[in-house]
């Protein structure tokens, strides 16, 4: 083989300004500041009903982040993220009915879905099944859970003294309480703060994970699994870790969801739920962490608006959105808006160089308004792995 040509060397993607920003700690800090401002401000700005609504948006955003991580950074398209979500909700509901105190159920609702994902992921990753099989198997598992839970309507189906309720679901789930004090239960406002707080903590942990070696190997597995294996990493173990972590996060979201409505039913395992999560991620932006949050809030708001009128069916709109985004905006809202912002900024700089200083002023403002959109891996070629290739 001849030595690589200079053209090939330059073909390695050089991270642009947007990507550099997305990978720096500044973007994480910015997201965090916005999040904390919302966490502190929204309870004063919204009435009780809107606050409860905002809570469920945040729960679903947490679920979206879990898929956004495993799909966008791990390269694992899990069609059954709702399986872990539902397992989390059911685990919490059953455990809290049996135990009374909510501390152990909360932990169980994270651990049990993660353990389930570990078994399932072992079958998939250590069987070296391809992406397509992965999608079909996770979809199948979701359907199995739906079918099983849906058929447990009779009084003979119970775990401890918690009836499973079949298609009716489990009503009157006890809310979270302060550890050790069953009477000190959480209120709507506390629920909001807990949920948004959990979302922020998860976001921060995932950003930190992606900044250290473990996270970089996970991203590298997505980019080129063979190369990772040749470098001496067991890619199966890294993928399994990402899968299990995402399942744990989805389980936590499920627990919070069961708390939010004090109710859980088999529909949270359903195909519609699975489809929604994928739509949130792809609309918001695959390969980012803020994207899924933005996508989930936007789509949920839209679904609620559609629900208030009768003319258009919500499936129709969701389906159309999914098709349009896959075909025309494959990167999703957040990276596209980020790129638009950068392009606008460049154009303004070029135009404003000879003219008034005022336009520079607006350019800086634009830069700030475009900033929250930027996120790690905004382009499909993650700089992490390209840096590794360059070295």
């Amino acid at each position, binding site marked *: 083989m001849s030595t690589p040509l200079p053209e090939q060397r330059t073909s390695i993607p050089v991270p642009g300004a947007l990507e550099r920003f997305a990978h720096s700690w500044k973007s994480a800090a910015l997201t965090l500041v916005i999040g904390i401002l919302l966490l502190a401000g929204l309870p004063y700005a919204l009435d009780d009903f809107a606050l409860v609504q905002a809570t469920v948006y945040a729960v679903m955003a947490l679920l979206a982040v879990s898929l956004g991580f495993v799909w966008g950074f791990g390269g694992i*398209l899990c069609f059954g993220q709702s399986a872990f979500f539902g397992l989390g909700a059911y685990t919490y509901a059953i455990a809290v009915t049996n135990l009374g105190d909510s501390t152990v159920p909360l932990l169980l609702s994270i651990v049990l879905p993660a353990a389930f994902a570990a078994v399932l992921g072992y*079958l998939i990753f250590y*069987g*070296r*099944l391809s*992406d*397509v*099989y992965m*999608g*079909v*198997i996770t*979809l*199948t*598992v979701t*359907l*199995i859970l739906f*079918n*099983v839970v*849906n*058929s447990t309507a009779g009084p003979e189906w119970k775990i401890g003294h918690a009836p499973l309720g079949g298609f009716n679901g489990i009503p009157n789930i006890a809310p979270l309480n302060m550890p050790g004090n069953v009477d000190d239960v959480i209120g709507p406002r506390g629920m909001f703060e807990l949920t948004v707080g959990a979302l922020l903590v998860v976001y921060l942990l995932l950003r930190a994970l992606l900044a250290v070696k473990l996270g970089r190997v996970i991203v590298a597995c997505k980019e080129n699994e063979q190369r990772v294996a040749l470098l001496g990493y067991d890619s199966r173990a890294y993928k399994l870790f990402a899968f299990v972590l995402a399942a744990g996060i989805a389980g936590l979201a499920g627990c919070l969801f069961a708390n939010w409505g004090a109710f859980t039913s088999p529909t949270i395992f359903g*195909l519609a739920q699975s*489809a929604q999560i*994928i*739509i949130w991620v*792809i609309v918001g932006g695959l390969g980012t962490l803020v994207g899924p949050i933005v996508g989930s809030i936007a789509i949920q708001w839209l679904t609620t608006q559609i629900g208030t009128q009768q003319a*258009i*069916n*919500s*499936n*129709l*709109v*969701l*389906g*159309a*959105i*999914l*098709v349009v985004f*896959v*075909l025309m905006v*494959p990167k999703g809202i957040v990276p596209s808006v980020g790129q638009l912002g950068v392009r606008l900024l460049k154009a303004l700089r070029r135009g404003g160089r000879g003219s008034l200083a005022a336009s520079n002023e607006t350019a800086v403002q634009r830069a700030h308004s475009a900033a929250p959109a930027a996120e790690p891996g905004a382009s499909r070629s993650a700089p992490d792995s390209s840096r590794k290739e360059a070295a």
Partner: protein
Amino acid sequence: MDLAVIVLIQVLYAIASLVVVSAGLAVVFGMMKVINLAHGEFMMLGAYAAIESVRVGINLWVAMLIVAPLSVAAIGVLLERVFIRRLYGRMIDTMLATWGLSLLLIGIVTSVMGNTTAGISAPLGNFTVGAYSVSSYTLVIIVIAIVLAVALRWVLLHTSLGLIARGTMQNPQMADALGINPSLVYSATFALGAGLSGLAGALLAPMTGVVPTMGGAFVAKAFITVIGGGPAIVAGLISSSALFGAISQVATFAMTPVFGEVALLAGAIVMLRLLPQGITGRFFKGAL
């Protein structure tokens, strides 16, 4: 003895219905490597086409065997031209876009037809085996499944049409150089797959009832069957249908239909772990 005959008929019916449900997908996925998650909705469209045709006075058999496949094939051509052909070679994107299509189709049909269960009663009445009574329509499905499998194999293997289709899927550039229009072949193959899905929906309509969301019940089963079958289209379809159909029917007899379904899906996961290439990836190599 009577019970044995009944069990045999039921197992054969389970296998036959899997063949019918999966045939369209086997063509689209096996030939074109397009993961069509709107497969279940194509079936739903076929079922509605049959029901509406019967309502305007067309003979039931004509409606099921001719009108439904042709109308769904036409819809398939349209969707292939507009959406699917932009996504060839991008497997995951195809999966997502067809999922979007499936939601879109559910939405459209719900808006037009309403979210209620429609149905046609099974024709031909019943026949009795000893003390048991079986719907004759069960036998029709079994016969149609056999005809379908034989015909599919014959078309793919022994007609110039099948040869052109297989050649184009293997090497579109070469086919192009030999004077064949690959985009036409892709459209035709997708239409064949869609038509078979429409036929399946129409055939099963008397057994299941028809709602806009009926497709969801079939799509996973069909996928499991096709993927479990492996690379050989017809041999894989038959062998995995036989395996999964038998598993699900035996579990249904032992417990409930729900656990029959669960046994099918769980068995498929275990089988994919043991035979990641599908049945024909390991056995019957080189068959079609």
